[in-house]
């Protein structure tokens, strides 16, 4: 086979036009680097969102109180106050597969200790909450089921709240005044950072929901109920049973709407990752355009090259090159340019995303798959955009090519 010779010929030709080869490859280098970096950013964002969804806990079902309409004004979810403590207890008791339940009430208020005060969110929860949300304590201990039953004045503080009020001091065992009621801090939560919506998840105080309802939030209804299923297969069944149980308890006749809303974690995760998937797609598409532009650059240079090297092609044909040899030569030139450009582009792309994550604190995630894909795409770009010029070269008539000025 003549492939060895043809490779040899193509590389000699590329070396003869070093600057041009480098500039042509540059189009592909930029294109591939852009694809790698952009997809890396998109995937990084997606991974971050997924990590935060996971921080919600595993196999979690959220039940929100319904909305109510009063004088034509509709409140949001939780406004109707349709969820009762007894509903949560019924779920705990009657729905199979449920491993943890946390009754939740929430409020925002001013908290104070010594001469410091801070405006923060108050969550009332059951003792299951920390397991359910997979949120361990950094220091101290969580409140106990006994604390919940007795509505004790104890609480756990988030990392932000702790530092805002106590600075570097240890808050465990200290007294925190909430609406002038002294609460003993039993523990400090591990820091979680910002949520996908940009809310500081550590700016909280968590206490027994009984204490919260009695002393802070007021009212007799729950904002929502957090439920955890034993494993992923049980989520759907548990969700259905919760719906029918609550409809029965709330005396909702068939055909009427629920006065509550049930969401499971997968639905929330899907909604959130859909956004980042669209972002990845968009960034990738923009970068892909630059790769196509790079390909057109190759085609352009190869066409110029064919025209400029018409005499050379004539000589090659005269000394015995077949049309196929010329075709292969120019194709190899195009593919070499694009795949070498692709390799360099991968290096630059990986470097760029590393720099972005270090200096712009932008999470990036580069997979072997995206590297392999961009390499083969760039080689494919070479074949696709190199074929037309190469065929033009192969079809030249030797006599006319030799006479070309």
């Amino acid at each position, binding site marked *: 086979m003549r492939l060895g010779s043809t490779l040899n010929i193509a590389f000699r030709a590329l070396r003869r036009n070093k600057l041009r080869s480098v500039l042509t490859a540059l189009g592909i280098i930029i294109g591939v680097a852009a694809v790698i970096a952009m997809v890396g950013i998109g995937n990084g964002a997606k991974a971050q969102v997924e990590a935060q969804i996971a921080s919600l806990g595993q196999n979690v079902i959220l039940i929100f109180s319904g909305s109510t309409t009063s004088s034509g004004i509709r409140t949001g979810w939780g406004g109707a106050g349709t969820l009762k403590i007894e509903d949560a207890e019924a779920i705990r008791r009657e729905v199979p597969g449920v491993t943890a339940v946390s009754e939740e009430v929430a409020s925002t208020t001013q908290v104070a200790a010594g001469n410091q005060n801070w405006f923060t969110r108050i969550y009332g929860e059951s003792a299951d909450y920390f397991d359910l949300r997979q949120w361990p304590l950094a220091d101290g201990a969580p409140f106990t089921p006994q604390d919940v039953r007795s509505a004790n004045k104890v609480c756990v503080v988030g990392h932000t709240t702790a530092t805002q009020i106590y600075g570097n001091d240890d808050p465990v065992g200290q007294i925190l005044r909430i609406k002038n009621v002294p609460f003993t801090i039993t523990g400090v939560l591990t820091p979680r950072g910002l949520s996908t919506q940009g809310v500081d998840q550590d700016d909280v105080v968590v206490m027994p929901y009984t204490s919260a309802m009695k002393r802070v939030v007021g009212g007799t209804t729950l904002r929502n109920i957090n439920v955890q299923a034993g494993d992923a297969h049980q989520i759907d069944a548990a969700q259905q049973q919760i719906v029918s149980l609550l409809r029965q308890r709330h005396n909702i006749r068939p055909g009427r709407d629920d006065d509550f809303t049930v969401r499971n974690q997968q639905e929330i995760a899907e909604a959130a990752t859909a956004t980042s998937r669209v972002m990845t797609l968009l960034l990738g598409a923009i970068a892909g355009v630059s790769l196509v532009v790079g390909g057109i650059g190759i085609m352009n240079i190869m066409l110029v090259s064919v025209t400029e090297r018409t005499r050379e092609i004539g*000589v090659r044909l*005269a000394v*015995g090159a077949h049309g*196929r040899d010329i075709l292969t030569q120019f194709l190899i030139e195009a593919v070499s340019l694009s795949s070498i450009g692709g390799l360099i582009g991968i290096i630059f792309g990986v470097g760029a995303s590393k720099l972005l994550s270090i200096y712009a604190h932008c999470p990036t995630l580069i997979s072997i798959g995206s590297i392999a894909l961009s390499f083969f795409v760039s080689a494919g770009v070479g074949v696709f955009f190199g074929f037309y010029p190469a065929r033009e070269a192969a079809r030249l008539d*030797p006599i006319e090519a030799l006479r070309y000025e």
Partner: protein
Amino acid sequence: MKNGEVVRLIDVEKTYRTGEMEVRAVRGVSLQIQRGEFVALMGASGSGKSTLMNIVGCLDRPSAGRYLLDGADVSGLERDQLADIRNRQIGFVFQNFNLLPRTSARENVELPLLYGDHRLSNAQLREKADRVLASVGLEGREDHHPSQLSGGQQQRVAIARALVNDPEVVLADEPTGNLDSRTSVEIMGIFQQLNDRGITIVMVTHETDIAAYARRNVIMRDGVVLNDSAVTRRLDAQTELERITRSTTER
């Protein structure tokens, strides 16, 4: 040295069609060239000599008639088959040298070997190219690029390229057209040396003094052979060069 016919043209015609116009460039040429001949093909522009040269060089196919190269009919061959014939049996020398730019003399000479069927290592290619370059007096210039060589040296590289595959016949199209008179004589000297070694040469030229270095002159006009005769007062390049050198030193 083998004997016999290398080129045999039988009633060869070539007609070009450009739109409505029909151009009969060659109108029935029969010609035989024996092994070891040195033929100068002459004629004014439009006489059909270049077209005939392209047919002999297997770059073009005759519209009618037959062409036997080394006894085999090549007039009906396909494009790629003709390419193989050119690679193995024909060496080309052009007026404008047609060397690959920014490519060393050695790599230019290796070019026909790259398209052959033989499998030579890079070292063998190199050795073969260097040997042929030395035989045309370019020892030590193997790595020079065309831009670093004089016109005469470039044409020697082209001759080396034509010779590297040991062709049946070397075809030279106005080989001295771009050279000064002294260099032209030098190139003719190389052709005469090659011819003395038994290599068949067909050269297109319109200069009578250049044609006088050949052994046989074929003159064409309007697509037919007007005159075909042996050269009676053949010039010897060696003698001519000495004469030129003498006259310049005397001056």
